[in-house]
């Protein structure tokens, strides 16, 4: 029997549980994502966040629960939502352009056509001029941009970003946040974002789920009402600090 979720939800995760070799990692996790929303999953490392993403991406099958995209069940089926990891995973033997175009080629598009579609977006992502370079020739920040563009080209629907910026140093990260907020203004990607960085979560998100405990459970949902477009100096406001206090209190720190 199929359960029809609320029409408003882009992505809906219902009552997902998962155990590995008898050890429960996720327990009864339900989260949702609306069209164009950016929602963060905040929690300590090893709290089951990545397992949850693998389930949403269809790489793992949950022991219990279901995943819906636009009301259609996608539990255990890869290829529906795009997925970006902390490692940029740009293939060293393909040019930046060919890396970015890879998801289109995998879908059966001709190489030339895929390249064309990819290069049309290079400027929007701040990657103009890097098309023919090898990934090794890009800086860390630029590589993440390229990885995000590849994610975006795979699906303009829903993106799962697993700590995409956590490997970057503080200054680069801050610049990438600025860039990311700018890009999001006009691409309106529905995004589920994993992070263990509280500041990053508040700055970027519309809503934050706190995923805590062993096994991981959603213990709190916090909506960030600050208007968009947000600027980096939002992190210095009293409002921002209020949110941060709330989260720290909820995490028991």
């Amino acid at each position, binding site marked *: 029997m199929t359960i029809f979720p609320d029409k408003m939800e882009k992505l809906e995760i219902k009552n997902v549980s998962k155990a590995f070799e008898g050890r429960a990692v996720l327990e009864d996790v339900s989260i949702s994502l609306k069209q164009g929303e950016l929602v963060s999953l905040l929690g300590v490392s090893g709290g089951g966040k990545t397992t949850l993403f693998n389930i949403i991406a269809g790489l793992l099958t949950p022991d219990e629960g279901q995943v819906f995209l636009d009301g259609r069940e996608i539990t255990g089926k890869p290829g529906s939502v795009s997925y970006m990891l902390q490692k940029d995973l740009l293939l060293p*033997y393909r040019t930046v352009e060919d890396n970015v175009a890879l998801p289109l080629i995998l879908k059966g598009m001709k190489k030339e056509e895929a390249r064309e579609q990819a290069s049309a977006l290079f400027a929007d992502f701040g990657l103009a001029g890097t098309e023919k370079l*090898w990934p*090794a020739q890009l800086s860390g920040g630029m590589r993440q941009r390229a990885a995000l563009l590849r994610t975006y080209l795979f699906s303009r629907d829903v993106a799962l970003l697993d700590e995409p910026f956590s490997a970057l140093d503080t200054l680069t990260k801050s610049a990438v946040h600025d860039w990311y907020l700018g890009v999001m203004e006009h691409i309106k990607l529905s995004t589920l974002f994993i992070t263990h960085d509280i500041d990053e979560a508040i700055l970027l998100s519309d809503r934050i789920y706190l995923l805590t405990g062993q096994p991981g459970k959603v213990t709190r949902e916090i909506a960030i009402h600050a208007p968009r477009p947000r600027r980096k100096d939002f992190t210095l406001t009293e409002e921002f600090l209020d949110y941060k206090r709330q989260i720290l209190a909820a995490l028991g720190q």
Partner: protein
Amino acid sequence: MKRKLRNTTRDKGPALIALGGLLALWIAASALEWVPGYLLPAPWDVAAAFATEAPLLLEHSLITLQEAFYGLVLGVGLGFLFAAAMDAWDLLYRALYPILVLTQTIPTVAIAPLLVLWFGYEMAPKIILIVIVTFFPVTVGLLDGFRAADRDAVALLRSMGASPLQVFRYIKFPSALPQFFSGLRIAAAYAVVGAVISEWLGGFGGLGVYMTRVKQAFAFDKMFAVIFLISAISLGLMALVDWAERRCMPYRNSKGEET
């Protein structure tokens, strides 16, 4: 680029000096008659033999090269199929890998006469021997390469809905290229040596056949000429592999320039 050039000179300098020293010693030994000429021919005698025998050497070289080429192509092709299958099915890997290692303990010189008995004096036994000796380094190189492929990259492609064949084509195969070329370089040298050894044991043409003939005639100058030619052919083939490697992996050259 500049740094690369300097590296090459620094790397090869000592080897070139040592090689020059050996050549000087050989010239001295011949000129001062430390060793009788019928045991160790002088460099100029070898050069002269090479010049007069050039048309004959070319003819035999072509036969040897042909055998080496067919054997190498078949060995690489077979190695590729085995490596791909063994990577895809772990059971096959566990079943065949020990046998693969076992084949390497069989001395080439020992099975070559058997192959001649079974397959005759034509090209077949020579090509089979070359396949046997080239197959192993290529298979092992590819297998290691396939297994070294980044698991996260494979997961990423799977999340994009890639088929196993697409994962192979876009991740596993390109990741295995460096190890594949290392294996191929060894295989290319083995192929020439394998061809010559199998020609020794019977055949109608090829550098190995030429070698046995001049040996029986005690023509040591010609013997030396053909030995140098075989070395040169092996080096040439290895250089060809290096060239193909650079062509197939241009991203490797650009890495150093940036950092």
